[in-house]
């Protein structure tokens, strides 16, 4: 994903995901589309999976884990969420 793709992400969705990430954001880094789950938030895969479950239930969508293997940043995740919501 390029920064141009990230710019297309709905800022409201990004903000909501940022709020939902508060519990995982132990160092209180600013959440942007470029925030990397592993490098910036330093969360392990189990914590990310719990976050995904919460996002699924909030938006009443299913996010197959097949779609998450390439996801590294919050922006990339937001794109997956946006796609699932419009499906």
């Amino acid at each position: 994903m390029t920064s141009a793709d990230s710019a297309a992400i709905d800022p409201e969705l990004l903000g909501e995901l940022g709020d939902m990430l508060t519990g995982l954001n132990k160092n209180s880094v600013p959440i942007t589309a470029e925030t990397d789950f592993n490098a910036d938030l330093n969360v392990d895969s189990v914590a990310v999976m719990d976050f995904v479950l919460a996002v699924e239930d909030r938006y009443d969508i299913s996010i197959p884990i097949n779609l998450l293997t390439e996801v590294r940043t919050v922006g990339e995740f937001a794109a997956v969420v946006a796609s699932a919501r419009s499906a």
Partner: protein
Amino acid sequence: MDLFDKFKPLAAAYADLTHGGRDPFGVAFDRILSPTVGMIGDREVILAGTNNYLGLTFEPEVIAAAQEGAARYGTGTTGSRIANGTYGPHRALEAEMAAHFGMAGAIVFTTGYQANLAAVAGLAGPGDQVFIDADCHASIYDACKLSGAEIIRFAHNDPKSLDRRLGRTDPNASNKLVIVEGLYSMFGDIAPIAEFVAVKNKHNAYLMVDEAHSFGTFGARGLGVSEADGVLDKVDFIVGTFSKSLAGIGGFAVSNHPQFNLLRLAARAYMFTASSSAASVEATRAALKLIQARPALKDKVWANARRLHKGLTDAGFALFAPASPVVAADMGDPAKAAVFWNALLSAGVYVNLAMPPGTPNSKSLLRCSVSAAHTPEQIDRVVASFIAVDRAIKANTLAAVG
């Protein structure tokens, strides 16, 4: 640039873990004296982390069967089930497992891992949807990847979470397979199988239950949590292992589905690996006979499980689940867990050390598995060692333990 560069964080964590102690993932027992006692060097160690739930690995009938299997059929089969690797004992064990479960079909595999790989990736493929409990074993996750199906996780032991996810799918668009375990191996918590059956029926999905840790110890006939919950006949597929209660190596899947045997032609983990040795198959068959002949074994493992659970609870340890043959204590953080594990081994008690990312909820824990072969005195020694190590850590006098 090096292929192993990606493992730098892993190597650093491993170095931390083994610094100043033994390698928890590299313990080698120099001798095994019984189902509950091993030797490391010249020290005897109580085995309290071996999944030897019914303690049948040293039963004379089981050892004699393994010896006779090797003598009659040779040490290895040198081929896969679909080539030269199916012997009479493989067929006999399949018939005996099917009869034991009261199911139409049974297929045996070379390991439990391969049983899941074969069953999941054999049954589900591109265009199908698989719904898995978040805490499912790595073999199930790996099988899902191999299947090419769409994989959707639901919250651990939460039928409502599954219900919501099944409810979001198009009921006619794909086949849906739900996968849960009976007894979860890390925390020792039990799945509400009857509730999962109700949800899968509501959505016209299939249900597979992995009874690897519950076979032999749950249900009137020891068939697992599905039997204990009274829904064995509502579960579409059961998978399990021979390497725990059945004292061998291998895995199985049983089902009443009329097309079940097609898996033999579709499951790559069945087709492209050598079959189990006759020694292992014959040992498993002998252990199955013993389970059928000695229902009291189940009572014994439960009495020991309750004794250990009560002992550790009374001593103030935080346990993850009610008493079951898996009893796991929360250690708080990986460093303390590693120190505690080392000290227990020095005190003559072997348990399993488990830590993130291999554990649910990123917990660091010491996992005990209880055997019918443990004596009450051995269980009490395990508890006493936990207490002694805990006190020594708190008082900073660890060197005195052991």
